[in-house]
C-alpha cells in the first residue's frame, strides 16, 4: 500500500483536509490508526462527523503524532488502497516542548518512505522558512505536490499565482479543505500515481 503524507505548518488545515478528502472519496467511517511514540499503535473507528469534531482543532499542534487512515482510490474498475498519514505541524524554530519535537521527528521519518507528499500551505503570504525547505526538498521528489489550502478565504487567489511561480515545476493544487473544493484534482493526482 502506498503512503501519502500530509505535512505543513501548524494550522494550515492538514487534518481537516485529510478527513474531508477521505469523505470526498466516499468514506463514511474512518478507521484511524494512531501511532504515538510512547505506547503501541491503536486504531479507532469514527463516524466521519465525529472524526472532524475530535481530530480537527484551532489550537496549533492538535495532531501530536502520526495518524493514518486508509483511503479507497478508484482506479479504473478496481479500488486501490492508499494510506493517508496526517502529521504534526512543522515550525521554523526549535519547538520548546519535547513531545512536539518528537512528533516532528516522526513526521520527518515518514517523509523518506512516503510515495506522495502533500505539502499543505496557506497561500495568503509568500512561502518562507520551513515551507521553503520543504518545497526545495519536494522539487527533488516525484510524488510531491503543494496543496494551496484555504482558497475560500480572502487574499488566497492572489497569493496562489505567486506560489505557482515559486513552485515552478512542482504541481500546485488549489483546495479548500473546509469547502471541499479542488479535491477532484487531488484525487486525479493520486490516481495517476497509484
Amino acid at each position, binding site marked *: 500500500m502506498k503512503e501519502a503524507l500530509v505535512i505543513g505548518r501548524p494550522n494550515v488545515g492538514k487534518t481537516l483536509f485529510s478527513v474531508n478528502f477521505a469523505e470526498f472519496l466516499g468514506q463514511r467511517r474512518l478507521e484511524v490508526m494512531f501511532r504515538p511514540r510512547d505506547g*503501541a499503535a491503536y486504531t479507532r473507528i469514527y463516524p466521519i462527523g465525529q472524526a472532524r469534531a475530535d481530530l480537527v482543532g484551532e489550537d496549533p499542534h492538535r495532531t501530536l503524532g502520526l495518524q493514518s487512515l486508509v483511503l479507497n482510490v478508484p482506479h479504473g474498475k478496481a479500488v486501490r488502497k492508499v494510506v493517508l498519514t496526517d502529521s504534526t505541524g512543522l515550525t*521554523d524554530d526549535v519547538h520548546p516542548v*519535547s513531545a512536539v519535537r518528537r512528533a516532528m521527528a516522526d513526521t*520527518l521519518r515518514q517523509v*523518506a518512505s512516503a510515495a506522495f507528499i502533500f505539502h499543505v500551505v496557506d497561500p495568503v503570504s509568500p512561502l518562507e522558512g520551513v515551507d521553503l*525547505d520543504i518545497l526545495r526538498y519536494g*522539487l*527533488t521528489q516525484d510524488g510531491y505536490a503543494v496543496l494551496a489550502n484555504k482558497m475560500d478565504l480572502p487574499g488566497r487567489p492572489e497569493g496562489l499565482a505567486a506560489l505557482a511561480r515559486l513552485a*515552478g515545476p512542482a504541481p500546485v493544487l488549489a483546495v479548500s479543505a473546509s469547502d471541499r473544493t479542488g479535491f477532484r484534482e487531488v484525487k486525479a493526482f493520486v490516481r495517476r500515481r497509484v
Partner: protein
Amino acid sequence: MTRAGETPARPEGGGPETPGVEDVFGRLERGEITPGEAFRVFRLAGGQAGDAKLEMAEPATERRLAETFDELEFLVGLTSVKRLVRELHAFIVIQRERALRGLSAEPMVLHMVFKGNPGTGKTTVARILGRIFKATGVLQKGHLVECERADLVGEYIGHTAQKTREQVKRAIGGILFVDEGYSLARGGEKDFGKEAIDTLVKAMEDHKDELVLILAGYLDEMQQFLESNPGLQSRFPIQITFPDFTLEELMEIADLMLAKRQYTLTVEARQALRAKLQRYRRFPYGDENAGNARLVRNIIERAMRRQALRLVERSSRSRADLQTIEAADLDGDDYEAGRPD
C-alpha cells in the same frame, strides 16, 4: 517505516558537517536543529537516505536547458534575438530567486510580439522559448500551438469567441503563436477579427500564469496593428524584431542545410547560389521571401530535384556524383512557374 516507540540509532557526537540522515531525527528531537534544517539535510543527502527514491531531479532539467541554449546558439545570425532570449532567461531565474529570499518579485508578463519577414526564425525561436520556459518552470508543458486568422475567426456571431477559446485551451501550459497577428484587425469595425482580439486579451488575463501569447507578423503591419490598438501595446511588453538575414548569413544557412542533407556544392555552384541570393535580395519582385531562410531552402530543394533529374538519365553514377550539386542545377526558377528569374 519506523514503528512507534522505537528509538532511533543515535550516533552521538556526529559532526554537524556530515550528519547521517538517521542522526537528523535524533537531533531534531533533541532540539539541535529545526525541521527546515532537517529537510535541507535530506535534500543534500540525496540517495544516502537509505531510500532509492531520494533522487535529484535537477540535473536532467539543467541538461535540457543547456541543450536548448546550444540549439539557440547554432541558429545563424539573430544576434540581438539571442541576447534577448538570454536576458529573459536570466530575468526569470533572478525573479524566482528574489521570491525565494522574500524580496518583492516582478510579476512576469511574457507575452510577446515578433516582428519580421517570414523565414527569419520567428517560429524556431518561439519553439526554443517554449522549452526554456518549461525548463525554468514558467510554463508546465512549453509546447507551441501555431494558429492564424482562419483558426481564430469564425463565420457567425459567437463563433469567433468559441474558436479562439478552443485554440487558447489547446495552448494552456505552453505558447499560443498567432501568425500574421495583424490580420485580426483587418476588415474594420464589423469584422469578427476584433472579437478574436478581445477573446485573446481576456485569455491573457485569465490564464496569466499558464499561457504565453506571441503575435507574429511583418514588421510594418505589426507596427500599425499595435499602434491602432493602444491597449495592446502595453500588454506585450516584449517586442522582438527579426532582421532579414545578410547575404553571408544566407550562405551560412545554405551550407548548414546542405551539410545536413549530405550534399556539396561545386565552386561554380557556390558562385551561382551567391549570385542568385544577391539577385533576389536586390529585386525581390515584391516577394517577402527575399532575404530569408525559407528562400534558401526552396532554392536548395529545387537544386536537389534538378540534380536528381540530371543524374537519373545517366547510365552510371558515382557516390561523389550523388552528393554534388553543380551550377547547372541552380538554373531557372525557384518559385512557382511564371515568375521571372
